[in-house]
Structures are given as C-alpha cells and as structure tokens.
C-alpha cells in the first residue's frame, strides 16, 4: 500500500512539473497564450480545465478498457475519445453558464475550444498508450491539470506586468509572450531528473 502511494505521488509530480504539458510537451498552447492575459480568467480557466480533464480521463478510461479493448476497437480511439470529451464539455459548458454567468461571459469562445483542446484529448491517449490503471489515470489527469494551472498562473502574472513594459513594436503581443514562455520553460528544465520513473 505504501509503495503504491509513493508511485502515485511520483506520477503526480512527474505529470505536473517534470512533464509539464505546456513547457515540455507543448500542448494546449492556444489556450495558454489566449487566456493568460489576465489573472482572473487564467484562474477560472484552470479550474474548469482541471475538472474537465479529470472527469473525461476517467470516462475515457472506462470506455476504452471495458468496451473498446474487448471488442478490439483500439484503432477508433481518436474518434471515440473526442466524442466523449466533446459530450462532456458541452455538459460542463451548460453548468458553468448557469452557475457563473460572469465568468462564462469572459471565457467566451475559449470554453467552447476546450472541446477540441489538445491536452484534454492527449491525456486519454497517453493513458491508453501507457496502460495506466483507473486510479493512475485520474492521478495523471489531476497532475496534468494542476501543472497547466501553474503554467497559466505564472504566465498571467508576468503578462499583467508586461502590459506596462515598453516592448519594441514588432515584438508586441504574441512574440514577447513566446519569449517569456521560453524563459519559463528554461526554468522548468530544472525539474528534469527530479524523479526517475
């Protein structure tokens, strides 16, 4: 039991820091650069994102290992996972519109984009590839979500400061955001080798 727990903890840290989706796997960049201009939206997005990721990873795992593997339908995984994620995001969208209309209004188009977001689709694909158990899949999804949240919050806090900085004209907007991301990514390479999985 103790050994199992250690393994899960390692998986969690690896997913959130060492294999951080934004800085080492480069997924979810559209949202990362799109929503990280303000802290408030970055936090809202991160929370929605993590929740959607954990639940859709669990749903996809159940469908993959109880239906698709016994029937030998693994080659349909892309189509099926995107269906699961899209259906679930539609549900989350409706709930958020009811519970928090202000935030819904701000996140606007990006909430719809979650459905076709690469990280949310990548997590079930990696889970299937690595043959994680259900608990491992959920922990992996949670770690990935929190890692993404961490990246968003760091980026948002820097970009709020960048608003008042004097940036050369060709670099205003996205280019400087990319160079900022490069510097953060450089810091994140410091985590590599923290745990040997």
């Amino acid at each position: 039991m103790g050994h199992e727990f250690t393994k899960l903890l390692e998986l969690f840290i690896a997913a959130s820091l060492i294999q951080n989706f934004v800085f080492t796997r480069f997924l979810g960049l559209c949202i990362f650069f799109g929503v990280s201009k303000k802290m408030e939206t970055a936090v809202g997005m991160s929370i929605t994102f993590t929740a959607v990721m954990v639940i859709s990873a669990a749903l996809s795992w159940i469908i993959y290992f109880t239906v698709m593997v016994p029937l030998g339908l693994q080659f349909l995984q892309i189509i099926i996972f995107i269906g699961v994620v899209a259906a679930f995001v539609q549900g989350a969208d409706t709930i958020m519109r009811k519970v928090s209309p202000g935030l819904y209004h701000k996140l606007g188009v990006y909430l719809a984009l979650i459905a076709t977001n690469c990280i949310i689709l990548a997590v079930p694909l990696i889970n299937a590839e690595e043959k994680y158990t259900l608990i491992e899949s959920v922990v992996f999804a949670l770690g990935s979500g929190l890692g993404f949240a961490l990246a968003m919050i760091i980026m948002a806090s820097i970009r709020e400061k960048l608003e008042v900085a004097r940036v050369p004209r060709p670099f205003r907007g996205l280019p400087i955001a990319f160079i900022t991301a490069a510097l953060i990514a450089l810091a994140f390479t410091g985590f590599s080798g923290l745990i040997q999985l």
Partner: protein
Amino acid sequence: MQDNRSLKQIFLDGILVDNTIFRLAISLCPAIAVTSKLKNGVYMGIAVAGVQAMVNLTISLMRKFIHPRIRIPVFMLVISGWVTVTVLLMNAFVYDVYKEVGLYIALIVAFASILAHAETFASKNKLAPSFVDGVGMGLGFMVALTIISFFRELFGKGTLWGVDVLGFKPMLIMILPAGGFLVVGLLMGFFNWIDIKFYGGKGAGGAG
C-alpha cells in the same frame, strides 16, 4: 458566401497572407513540439496538409446534405476519420518519425485551423476551390514548420535531416523545449518587423 478569388489566389493566400502559424497564430502546439528535427517537422507538415485537403474535399462533397445544426459534430467526425487514416499510414510507412511524433499526429484532430477551414470555406464552396484552399493552407503550415525546424536543428545539433553540416553544436538550448518558444517568438517578431517596415503594419500581429 461563395468565395470569388481565383484558385491561384486562394492557394497563395493560404501560404502567405493567412499563414496559420506566423500570421493567425493558431495550431501552435505541434509547431514547437515536433520541430526539434527538420525531418519530423516536414513530415508533420505533410500530414497536416494531407488531412486538411481531404477534409475540405469531403466536407465540400457533403455540404448540401449536412444540416446546419449538426454541422460541427459532423465536421469533427470527418476530421477524426481522416486523422485516423493518417496515423495508420504513418505508422506503416515512416515508423521512425511516427515513434517520435505519433501523439501529435493524433492530435491534429484538435487543430482549430482545420475545423475553421472546414466551417468557413469548405462548407460553402465547390469542390475545386475547397481542395485548393486545403492544400494551400497545409503547405503554409508545412513551410512554417520547415523554417522553424531548420533553425532549431541547425543551431541545436549542427545537423540537417540527420546529416552533420556544422561539425559542432552551437546552441544546445535550441533543441530544448525553451528553444522552441524562443525561435517561434523571434520569427514572429521578424515577420511583424517586415510587415511594419515594408507594408506599413497593416494587419500586424497574430490573433491572440
């Protein structure tokens, strides 16, 4: 809204004016993820171009039968079908590339640009313009990936397509994750600079 531009114009706009990566700044993930080697970058570009062209063709063929309300799910189905075909093809024929970029090929399905072209172009236009639009956009994507991976492999490893050309490794940082962001940032800045310098900054910068 039928598009009245000539085929040649549609083709060129896809490569230059509406370049997915440097001008519209969408579908950025693979632009950084797979570009540490020139070979991976080029194959990824080919895969995207193929998927985009075939998706546009299919959607354009079916455009009269798709009910507007269910169009997005139908588009997603068509896209993921073609992506599955691409994944299986690459797995069969270029296994060494597939091993490294397989995950990103599968994730082409989540490309905003492919869905956007299906929605704004292919579902409203005839077969030939849709196909040309898909090929043009795909080639634009491929050109961008080729430029990025050229610089990253050359400076990071001193090689091109796996062949040693420099004999030393000038900047290891280029093949690290950080280098990807840096190269894309600098190239975007460079294209903006050209835009401001020679075209007066009309339409400068990406969407966001």
